[in-house]
């Protein structure tokens, strides 16, 4: 019994990370109908950026967020302004192809710079610290922190989207690009801000991923799949739904892994397929952000 409580708890805590993978993805799709195939590779890129910064300045991974988050946001802004804005239009295919190409470039670039060796960020004592909830049930401080940060990130995005002028601009531009322009909103700038916000979230997710487990340049596409699955399970366009989607995926994987270690990823995919079959619109759909 205690065994299962632990399993589900671990799944929930990992699910927070998946929700962070998914939030940036869903934000970009919601605002500009862009499916970012390079999203997972950008997460891995953020992990390597954090690696360089922690090694260069001799600071811990969590402190490095102070640099990594703004840096990734700046990369996101530039990427959107210089490349992705040119691909947007009536057709969904060009941005898909360009981000696919970007994914290949990031993977091979990282491979050339850092080799295929697995790396990991060292966070020190916090990595092994645990809290005893009650007899037989323990949670790691780091997974707990990661989960709390994930919930805070979702709450912050929710606040930005529904309570600020920037969020209004995002939603208006998503509704109608041409009318938003008539209101004086420069679409290219609004989209670039959305991508900057997305990559700021990516930066946080990337650092937690890199502290939690080994990473190497080829890991991006799997993170992308987890992100996609969390978005679809939760329902497109709902941020809290995305959090729920991440948690469900995390728990499904944890249960699968507990039954047989080889079933971890498979159980997540099966859970996703079942939900897609039963509720194609996801659990908490809201058509648009």
């Amino acid at each position, binding site marked *: 019994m205690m065994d299962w409580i632990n399993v589900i708890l671990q799944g929930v805590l990992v699910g927070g990370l998946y929700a962070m993978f998914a939030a940036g993805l869903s934000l970009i799709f919601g605002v500009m109908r862009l499916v970012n195939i390079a999203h997972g590779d950008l997460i891995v890129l953020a992990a390597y950026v954090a690696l360089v910064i922690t090694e260069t300045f001799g600071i811990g991974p969590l402190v490095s967020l102070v640099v990594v988050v703004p840096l990734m946001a700046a990369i996101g802004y530039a990427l959107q302004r210089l490349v992705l804005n040119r691909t947007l239009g009536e057709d969904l295919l060009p941005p898909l192809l360009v981000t696919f190409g970007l994914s290949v470039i990031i993977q091979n670039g990282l491979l050339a710079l850092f080799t295929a060796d697995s790396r990991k960020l060292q966070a020190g004592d916090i990595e092994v610290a645990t809290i005893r909830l009650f007899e037989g049930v323990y949670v790691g401080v780091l997974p707990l922190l990661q989960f709390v940060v994930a919930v805070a990130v979702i709450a912050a995005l929710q606040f930005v989207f529904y309570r600020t*002028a920037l969020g209004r*601009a995002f939603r*208006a531009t998503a509704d*109608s690009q041409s009318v938003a322009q008539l*209101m*004086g*909103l420069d*679409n290219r700038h609004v989209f670039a801000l959305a991508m900057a916000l997305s990559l700021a979230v990516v930066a946080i997710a990337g650092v937690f991923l890199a502290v939690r487990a080994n990473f190497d340049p080829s890991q991006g596409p799997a993170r992308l799949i987890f992100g996609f699955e969390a978005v679809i399970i939760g329902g497109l366009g709902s941020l809290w739904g995305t959090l729920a989607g991440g948690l469900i995926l995390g728990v499904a994987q944890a249960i699968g892994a507990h039954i047989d270690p080889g079933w971890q990823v498979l159980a997540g995919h099966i859970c996703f397929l079942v939900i897609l079959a039963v509720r194609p619109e996801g659990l908490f759909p809201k058509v648009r952000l």
Partner: protein
Amino acid sequence: MSEPPLLAVRDLDAFYGDFQALFGLSMEVAAGEAVAVIGANGAGKSTLLKSIAGLLRARPDAITFNGARIGGMPAHAVAAQGIALVPEGRGLFASLSVEENLLIGGQLKRPGPWNLQRVYELFPVLGERRHLASTALSGGQQQMVAISRGLMSNPKLLLCDEISLGLAPIVVRDIYARLPAILGQGISLLLVEQDVVQALKTTQRVYCLQEGRVALAGAAKDLTREAIAAAYFGV
């Protein structure tokens, strides 16, 4: 006229791909003036407004506003110059509430008489329903939101595309009854309208378009029914 017009369109061509919608069209709006553009479906009325608002490409010198060449400027830059378009079919942001729609209209923060409070005084019903989704309103109320949203940017020139479209006559009369209050604030108006009688009543000058060209222009009170009918249908 010795004073240069607020808006001057000179020899404007407009295209949708290979299809040419406007042919060397010229017209102008003076400061403080209300001007109507009438014409049959496909005559190029909406195309003219879209060109002025920057949604369609135009030669830089084809459109001047307030002394500046605005032809070919992107729409968001044209809006910043002080031109607001109330688009055909209203174009409200469906996922925003009434008040959020108005706030988006005001996000340029141009100084002037219009703000949320003034707009709610003009259309009190919008104040009562400001937290509803914009799609939950009746057609007439949605048109009020669209006009108010345009006003929120404190434009020098308001472009209105088919305000009466799809609305009951009594609602149309109600909305037109508020236009004098708007014009009283020193805004110029360029109105595209199918309802010719309403257009002639509201404005001082009229342009009648036919197949992308000006077929007739003159003071609203001088134009005869016959002249308008001839220009409208090209007979």
